[in-house]
């Protein structure tokens, strides 16, 4: 039997990895991928607690998180395409104007 704290520790490690990725990468698409890692870490946490505390609510919230991740990916990638069309690179530290 795997203890619950093992799942929580795994989820914390993955979340920290995603957070580091958001902070240190310059490519906007990789930053979005790191956000997906963080959402997955949250999902592991939700499902683990749902299993160990014997309630279905965690799994339902995890389904909602997956749906929201899909919306976030669609809108984020659309923004990347718009920015890239304006002949700006996809490096986040070069995208520093709201209007030009």
């Amino acid at each position, binding site marked *: 039997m795997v203890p619950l704290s093992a799942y929580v520790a795994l989820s914390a490690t993955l979340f920290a990895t995603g957070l580091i990725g958001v902070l240190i990468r310059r490519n906007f698409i990789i930053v979005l991928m790191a956000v997906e890692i963080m959402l997955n870490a949250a999902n592991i946490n939700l499902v683990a607690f749902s299993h160990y505390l014997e309630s279905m609510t965690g799994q339902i919230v995890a389904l909602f998180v997956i749906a929201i991740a899909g919306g976030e990916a669609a809108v984020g990638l659309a923004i990347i395409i718009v920015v890239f069309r304006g002949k700006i690179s996809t*490096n986040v530290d070069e995208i520093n104007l709201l209007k030009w």
Partner: protein
Amino acid sequence: MVLAFFAYCSLVSIVAGFLTVALKNPVHCGIALLTLLLHVAGLFVLLNAEFLAMVQIIVYAGAILVLYLFVLMLLNLKTDERYLHSRFALILFAAVAICGELLLLIVGSPFGGLKGDAPTEVVLKDGASYAIGIKMFSDYLLQFEIIGVFLTGAIVGAIVLAKTPTSADIDNREG
């Protein structure tokens, strides 16, 4: 057996997460993210959430990741020589320190709480998808509808953002 499966899935997902953040070529990062998602689905199977594991594979690995790879190949980016933030050593140190403290706290703390109404035997009798469906379309119906509206808004917004500007749009912007 369960322990070995958990160790395999968790180790591979941690390594794949690290590679997603650390690799230089964005397409390689996408493949590493795919590995992470599949092994997280394996963890879901271990937690008796088969329906969620299938949704993870179909929606995440099948749809979202293909969208990422599609945009990567559409834009055809060339990788910069310097692909990390200029002060990444400082950020890395702070993040690793915070993560270490978090892990110490987690391993040392007891977990417990009120048990819900879905023990493993009850869920396994009719399957996880049955239990999720009953709960989602009774107690969480409003949230389900809100997610539907949200997804419609996101799709419409994405199409409006990414559609090719016509010549009339360009005239309006200049005029």
